[in-house]
């Protein structure tokens, strides 16, 4: 593994590049984290997925968006537009480091939403596959869910948290929610926004699905999207486990299979 800072010198992003010695054709997978509220939960799962992909001969690159993880910027800043640009920067960095011919993108939750929409201009590199794991289809619904979870958190606390909370500053699940971030999330609607091009797009949902109805509307609209569901819960909206690491095994295996097994012309 090669850890590095990349991107603009005044706002660097942390990237982790995992090369494999013999990848033919030179294939790579860019892993995109969910939003800050859920990124902490999937870190271990992404590490396991990275190992699985490496074992299958794929280079892997993962990174922290601006204002998240070890990247520059305070918590609460960024937003979907900026993070989508971060995905573009990460893809370019990945291509420069690995000299890959074919790239797949995998993202969970908001990461999946951005993977679905982000346009990549990578000259000689083909974007073969975009895999969306429990993607957020509607940003306004997602914000409503975050708000409900935050209310639950306050209601369940043994300490009167109202004394601590700043009524002027919104936050959700331990992270500040600045207007720029919330407005960018509110604008998200995969049912109306154009999806980016890829030879293959797959939606993978855990069971029970966080937003099954909207997923099916998306699938009805885009008949070419592949759909798979895995009988393993992720509990994205279960208050009791929100701070605990997500350790799915079947989902990670399925993502690994979907990304590495041939389907179509390229992979």
């Amino acid at each position, binding site marked *: 593994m090669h850890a590095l800072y990349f991107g603009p010198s005044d706002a660097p992003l942390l990237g982790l590049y995992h090369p494999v010695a013999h990848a033919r054709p030179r294939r790579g997978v860019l892993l995109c984290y969910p939003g800050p509220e859920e990124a902490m939960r999937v*870190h271990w799962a992404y590490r396991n997925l990275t190992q699985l992909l490496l074992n299958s001969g794929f280079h892997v690159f993962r990174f922290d968006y601006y204002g998240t993880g070890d990247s520059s910027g305070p918590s609460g800043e960024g937003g979907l537009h900026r993070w989508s640009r971060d995905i573009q920067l990460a893809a370019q960095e990945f291509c420069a480091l690995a000299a890959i011919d074919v790239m797949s993108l995998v993202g969970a939750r908001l990461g999946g939403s951005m993977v679905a929409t982000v346009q990549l201009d990578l000259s000689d590199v083909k974007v073969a596959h975009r895999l969306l794991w429990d993607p957020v289809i509607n940003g306004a619904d997602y914000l409503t869910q975050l708000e409900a979870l935050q209310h639950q958190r306050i209601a369940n606390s043994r*300490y009167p948290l109202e004394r601590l909370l700043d009524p002027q500053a919104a936050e959700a699940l331990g992270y500040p929610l600045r207007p720029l971030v919330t407005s960018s999330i509110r604008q998200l609607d995969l049912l109306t926004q154009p999806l980016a091009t890829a030879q293959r797009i797959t939606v993978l949902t855990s069971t029970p699905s966080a937003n099954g109805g909207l997923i099916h509307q998306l699938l009805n609209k885009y008949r070419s999207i592949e759909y798979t569901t895995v009988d393993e819960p992720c509990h994205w909206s279960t208050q009791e486990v929100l701070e605990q*690491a997500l350790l799915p095994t079947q989902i990670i295996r399925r993502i690994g299979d979907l990304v590495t097994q041939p389907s179509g012309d390229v992979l």
Partner: protein
Amino acid sequence: MSRERVLQFGPSGRLIGILCEPIDATLGRSKPAVLLSNVGVSHRVGPFRLNVHLARRLAAQGYYSLRFDFAGLGDSEASPDGGSETDRAIAEASAAMDLITVRTGIDRFVMMGLCSGADKTHIVATTDQRIVGAAFIDGYAFTTWRFNCRRLTLRLLELKRIKVYIKHRWKDLQRRLLRLPKPSQAYEPTVIQPPREQAEADLLAMAQRGVKQLHLYTISVDTVYNYADQFWHMYPALRPHRSSIISERYPQVDHTLSIVAMQKIIVERLCTWIGLV
């Protein structure tokens, strides 16, 4: 203001850490550097980016810090070496300190840890003479007779606690009736602490060596720590060292600092305390 560099170190470069440097590097070299690491299985950024906020705030005060993953956690590779977890923690923290010394010349260190990070802080601060300050958030705790009296009284009197208890039981019942899966997939680190006498002896030895200590306890550990002075009743041998040991209880803060204001309270406290080291 700060500047951050990503470093890989230790055997085969399998450990990963972020060195956060103050803009005024000269000032930083006269101060101890700070070590921050994992909390449970969370990677080095800590819960809700606690370690990132802390590192950047410390840098603004002129301190260098390294937030890193112990082997097998976060993004650091697992160690192929045998040996106990304790021995590995000591060796890896030592490698982190060596690295900082090579890069900055600093050879005095403060280690700060929450939960399992506090356990590792205890282990490292006990053995490594370069540690001059240690901050423990929800570190080891041992019940006392006063703890038991207070716990019983609170259980009988605290209405909100009873409401929360009933709510939790009701949720359990609903889950069973609806046959919903129990949210048990998450990893919960087991707290393994030494016998009280051993913990006390370790902390006493640290104090006698001149190591400044800060022990913070949150509301989440009130099943084992529920009043402000419990620390001094747990460890009576430490009472002569009150000038170098601070113990505080934070009933408004939970274990993972799940509200932004909680994070600010703890970061502020740590950043104020370090001035005493």
